[in-house]
């Protein structure tokens, strides 16, 4: 197998160039998918026979919860890559993805609470799924706080990577919480191996929203990482060229 792409990925310059060509496409895909999914889910999908229209919260709650967990797994993978191969870009990815993951966890928790009121009769219960999601939020806060508290960049990278790797144990706990413990939260509506139990006109907009959220994350992550790379590599000549080029293209006062 050819591994040159993997080593190139460690180079901030190569990353900056390749991500520049991906970013507009990810942004367009996110915009289109989220708009289509939102309109479809809010106005065209049929109401649930038990929950009525409150079930429409699923179209933001489930994609945000998926993404919140996926981002944490990505944090752990990037943490391993950063520790093993000393790749600078992996640490940039960990520190720039963590705030997005925290925001997604907030969306999942808040929309879940709002959904819980008409469905369960309460905004919050201390059950396994909800509590493990709250722990996920605190893990994200931990990564963000570590990155800001440690001024030495290498030490901060190592600390964040360790927390990301250790904290990933929470992800299977979140996933199986609805099976291991008695909880109010319903089990997963989706699985990779089985056909969905929902009718197609309900799950298709959900699938579109999930894809839209992933594209959204990709676009925002690249946006954040590109800026961080420019700041970290500010002394190198390619960044100076890049900044001059951008300044000439966009008139910034």
């Amino acid at each position, binding site marked *: 197998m050819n591994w040159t792409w993997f080593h190139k990925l460690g180079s901030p310059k190569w990353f900056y160039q390749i991500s520049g060509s991906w970013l507009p496409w990810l942004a367009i895909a996110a915009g289109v998918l989220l708009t289509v999914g939102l309109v479809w889910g*809010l106005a065209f999908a049929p109401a649930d026979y038990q929950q009525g*229209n409150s079930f429409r*919260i699923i179209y*933001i709650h489930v994609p945000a919860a998926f993404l919140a967990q996926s981002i944490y797994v990505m944090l752990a993978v990037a943490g391993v890559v950063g520790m093993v191969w000393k790749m600078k870009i992996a640490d940039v990815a960990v520190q720039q993805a963590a705030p997005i993951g925290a925001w997604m966890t907030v969306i999942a928790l808040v*929309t879940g609470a709002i959904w819980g009121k008409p469905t369960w009769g309460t905004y919050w219960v201390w059950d396994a799924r909800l509590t493990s999601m709250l722990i996920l939020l605190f893990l994200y806060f931990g990564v963000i706080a570590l990155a800001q508290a440690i001024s030495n960049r290498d030490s901060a990278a190592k600390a964040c990577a360790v927390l990301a790797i250790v904290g990933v144990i929470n992800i299977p706990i979140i996933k199986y919480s609805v099976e291991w413990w008695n909880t109010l939260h319903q089990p997963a509506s989706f699985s990779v191996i089985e056909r969905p139990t929902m009718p197609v006109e309900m799950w298709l907009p959900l699938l579109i929203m999930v894809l839209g959220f992933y594209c959204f994350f990709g676009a925002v992550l690249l946006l954040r990482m590109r800026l961080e790379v420019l700041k970290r590599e500010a002394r190198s000549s390619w960044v100076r060229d890049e*900044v001059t080029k951008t300044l000439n293209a966009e008139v910034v006062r």
Partner: protein
Amino acid sequence: MSFASFGEFLAMGNHGAYVWSAYAISVAVLAINVALPLMARRRYLQEEARRLRREAQQ
């Protein structure tokens, strides 16, 4: 369309307050996630432009 009128769409079968507040908060959070890095990038470019001008004068 699963609603007969726009009024029904807004009411969401008596769940309007829940559905719309959940969507409003989520859209606001997504907007913040786009706006913050864009503003940070703009601020960085402004600082760089100032620095380059200063260096050109010297």
